């Protein structure tokens, strides 16, 4: 029974990734596509940060440290970096969508497409 709560974050991450792929493949609105990528990013980040969880571990902050083992802060550092990168990516994508809308007057990925073949 103890394993269920520990595995729960991984299931949630898998669900988020699944939802995001559904959105990216079946939705034609560019804003929704970006939301799909944001959800994918959240899923991956959740996966990374839950890797770093150890039952009974302490935060690796050296002042007033309680007794017991400390966790290695690498996954947290990875997640923070990944969040920062994704903010930049999302901002850039939204800027481009603004430009696409100005040029074509549409956010539909089929209608705003110029290049084929």
């Amino acid at each position: 029974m103890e394993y269920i709560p520990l595995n729960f974050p991984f299931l949630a991450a898998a669900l988020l990734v699944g939802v995001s792929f559904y959105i990216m493949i079946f939705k034609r609105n560019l804003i929704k596509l970006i939301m799909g990528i944001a959800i994918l990013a959240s899923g991956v980040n959740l996966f990374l940060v839950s890797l770093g969880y150890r039952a009974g571990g302490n935060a690796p902050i050296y002042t007033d440290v309680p007794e017991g083992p400390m966790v290695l802060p690498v996954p947290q550092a990875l997640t923070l970096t990944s969040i920062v990168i994704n903010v930049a990516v999302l901002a850039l994508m939204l800027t481009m969508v603004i430009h696409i809308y100005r040029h074509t007057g549409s956010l539909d990925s089929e209608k705003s497409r110029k290049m084929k073949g």
Partner: protein
Amino acid sequence: MDKLLTHSPILIIVIPLVVAFLTPLIGRAGGKARNVLVVASLAFVEFLVIILARDIYLNGIHIYTLGAASPELTLPGGAMVPIRIILEVDAMSIFMGIIWATVSLTAAIYSISHMASETGQNRFYALLLLMVAGTFGMMFAGDLFNLFVFLEIASISGAALIAFRTRFADAVEGGFKYIVISAVAGLIFLFGVGLLYAQYNSLNIGFLANAMQYSTLDKIALTLFLVALTIKTGMVPLHMWYPDSYTVAPANITAMLVITSHACMYAVFRVCFTLYGITLDPATVGWIVIIIGLLTMFVGVTMAVFQTDVMRFMSYHAISQMGYMWLGVGVGLAVLGNPGALATYGRAAISGGIFHILNHAMYKPLLFMTAGALYHRTSTRDLNKMGGLGHNMKFTLILYIIGTLSIAGIPPLNGFASKFLIYESVYQFNPILAVIAMLVSIITLASFTKAFQSAFTGPQLPEYKDVKEVPKSMLIGMGILAAGIIFTSIFPGLVLERIVYPATDALINQGAYINAIMGGGTP
């Protein structure tokens, strides 16, 4: 000088990064000062790459541990796990580094005139240098997470550069496609990194390679890496974004993007050979790589035949040429577990693939730049609207011919040297593969002849009567690449011996890579 050499791996990444943020400041003083700064910094980086390369060929793998008391100290205080960020530069990494340093330098020189009429040039050069830093980071990173971070830096700046001419609707569309694809690929890659971290509690490639079990989770991680990097490289069947993005970017940026694709390809080879090495089932993965390579080669060239947009036409050829590299390296990978076959033809096949990266990295940017030169003077990319440009643009014509002969693999030129090496070694593995590769080469020549005929030959068209040769800086940029092609054509043996075979051996020799991290380093 010694200090410069010791710290060169990090300097090569940091100098473009710092200069990137200086350019908007210096740019306020004037365009000329900024251009000098950009070109000078890239020339200095090129110099650092060359001295580092020389040292690697003489003394082996170069390690740089960030924040350690001395750069070689990978395992501080007797630790069993490398915990710091480590840059590991071996002969394969520096091989890619030499290519990237040269192409980015020529692209920067070329941009001076090509982008002269654009607004926002300060930001253009800042992004260009960010892309330089990101791609160098991908080539030198010794751990998977930093590979991801640098991949994203290169992708973000690359997408912004593709969409740089926002006044064109298609440019923004191309940039958007690029960033979407890069973001998805990057996240898939990161998921794979997470899977490996979950099992081995480390991100260092050398450490992971040492501990690799090839369990089910490792197989899933390998699949995720391959999918992510195949998307980013632009291999068939995941190539749809590639011509769309590369067509609309400024030509100098397309030339650089070709090499960022190669950097992703380098990451594939690094993952297959160094991270998994012999533990992955070499025959299966090797055949997957071979089949992707063949498909890419064939679909790329057939799609190229009926393109009328000159940049799009060349983008499809770039896709097709990448198939050769995967074919060569895939054959080598398929026989990795068989020392006899590896010695007779496997090593030659890998060398052919890697040599083709070098050649492709010279003639494809050159061809893209000549396409950019045509666009610079005619303001159209449509081949059907061009004609008779050979009368006025003689130098561009000569450079185009050099590129064309090289990409088609006509005997004295370097494209022939690498393709021949691939045909010869692949034939011993499986004759059919070599036949398909030759067929693709013939179609390549045919379609380039067609493009040549419609752009350069024929009577002078009235609307292009006053077309002049492109400005000097563009010619210098293209000239450097053409000189590289001619040098490699005259001395293919020298180039193979000095830089290609060491790179191949660095890929095959997984032990040396692991040993550089895990062995020694403790005080």
